[in-house]
């Protein structure tokens, strides 16, 4: 039995310590935003945020997560109150099939927390580990820029919604 902190809640997990985080999120906690793509840490669909960093949850065993904060897309916002990154992706219509998008959003979110005004090159370099077969790359780029602007505005109006802190929502 181990305690896993996900989106600000403690979960008691009864799983082998070498179980990949992705399986625990999807099968035990029923958070399905993170997707299984390749299972080898090569496509990015399973990306979540752990202690502020984008992590490939399919190759991250549970035992590495003792005492760390996991954030999934569900932890950023809701359908009624989407986070800036989610709003931006919707407004730019950046998803086609959408399978890669949750992972893309998580890494973009981690990038924007570290670097609120990334350049085009920085976004491209950061999102390089993510594969998208539909080819909405240009929209994804625009969405990340838009999210940066939205977060900027959100900070000015002193709401920090959608910004992941140590013990968010």
């Amino acid at each position, binding site marked *: 039995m181990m305690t896993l902190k996900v989106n600000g809640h403690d979960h008691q997990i009864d799983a082998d310590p*070498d179980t990949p985080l992705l399986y625990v999120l999807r099968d035990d906690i029923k958070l399905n935003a993170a997707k299984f793509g390749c299972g080898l840490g*090569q496509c990015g669909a399973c990306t979540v945020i752990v202690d502020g960093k984008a992590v490939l949850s399919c190759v991250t065993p549970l035992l*590495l997560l003792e005492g760390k904060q996991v954030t999934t897309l569900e932890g950023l916002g809701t359908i009624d109150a989407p986070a800036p990154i989610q709003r931006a992706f919707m407004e730019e219509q950046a998803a086609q099939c959408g399978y890669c998008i949750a992972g893309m959003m998580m890494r973009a979110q981690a990038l924007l927390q570290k670097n609120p005004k990334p350049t085009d090159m920085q976004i491209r370099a950061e999102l390089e580990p993510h594969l998208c077969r539909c080819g909405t790359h240009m929209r994804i780029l625009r969405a990340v820029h838009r999210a940066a602007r939205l977060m900027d505005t959100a900070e000015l109006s002193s709401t920090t919604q959608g910004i992941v802190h140590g013990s968010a929502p």
Partner: protein
Amino acid sequence: MAKPRTTAGIIAALLVGGAVAVFAVVWRPAISPTEPPAPQSFDANLVKRGRDLAAIGNCNDCHTVRGGKAFAGGLPVPTPFGTIYSSNITPDPETGIGRWSEAAFLRAMRSGVDRAGQHLYPTFPYDHFINVSDEDDRALYAFLMTRPAVHAPAHANDLAFPLNQRFVVAGWKLLFLRHGTYQQDAAQGAEWNRGAYLVEGLAHCGACHTPRNALGAERTSASFSGGDVDNWHAYAINSLSPAPVPWDTEALFRYLRQGWHPDHGVARGPMAEVVSNLSSVPESDVHAIAAYMASVFGPPTQDHLRQASEVRAQIKSPPLELSPAHAAGASIYSAACAGCHETSRPLPYGGVNLGLSTALSAPDPRNAANIVLSGIRPVEGERSPIMPGFASSMTDQQVAALLGYLRSRFSNQPPWNGVEKAVQDARLTQTVFLQTSAGPQNAPADPMQRDKP
């Protein structure tokens, strides 16, 4: 009265003589700029040969920065003296070598002086290129002058005084630049001699694999005993090799040609780009390099052979007992690493059994730390070995615990010192390396492309 005048005269003569000597050592004339030669003026076969030679010389590796155009320079090269940025060697007339005559190019290769007469820093390995034949230099010139010109001004080097004064390099050359470091050996066959010519010259293997002295020159007395490059350790590739299984000509050939070998694993870090280039050159040249290097390694000792057979036996039946000191590292290994490194999936798409890993038997943990943190990036548009990096999912302590366990289980060497510090350093330097290195680019998928200059 005559005496002081004589003394003054002698001093004056010495000063003048000294100044002349210094001038002679330091001053190099500019070679007048030429109109950039038309690409059509070069013989297509010469260009093709130059293309293969440039691949053997690994020129693109230093002269291309990630996201930049091929050969346009700008790669930051960390050295103990500061950061030196590679130059633009495309035929751009303003920022590249477009106005360099063939004579100017030959002089740069031979003696590290640019067209304008400025001394070049020896990060450009002219201490090896001095051994390249005129004929090969001409082919390289033809190849480079037919590349697309890229306007890319040089990035200023980050060197402290007095090293930022290029005349200092003249003194370095006086001390360390030697003609004839490579001689044909009549007692050896043609293949060995071809390999020696390539290794000691254009391929400049020693630039990374030979340790350097305090002034940054290769210690010729310790050739191939292991050196440093971009915060990686370049292993000893002589009798001091830490490889668990000894190298031989065929293993070297396969490794250099295809980038991996079942007994040694996959080339990664800066070596990934070397093997990527070697995959596209004439097979006979790679075999010659392998044959020569096998003689540098020398025949394996009885000890080394016994160790190799122990390693093979251990791979088949791994030990079950576990030291409690390494329990944390062992759990991480079995959860995060064994899934790929202990399966029956063969190389290069499966992970090498770590009993065969040279990194874990190496004198320091740098390479092992680098690879755990950053993994192996896929080659764009090619099937290639892969490994996810664990920089974001493991803390320094977790990586250190893992490395401590791997060292104790998979090598017969004593524990490393300062593993956690090495992991911290690797975290910093790998971030830079991955952002600047262009990464391996294998030959074009269409082999017909290779015939086009």
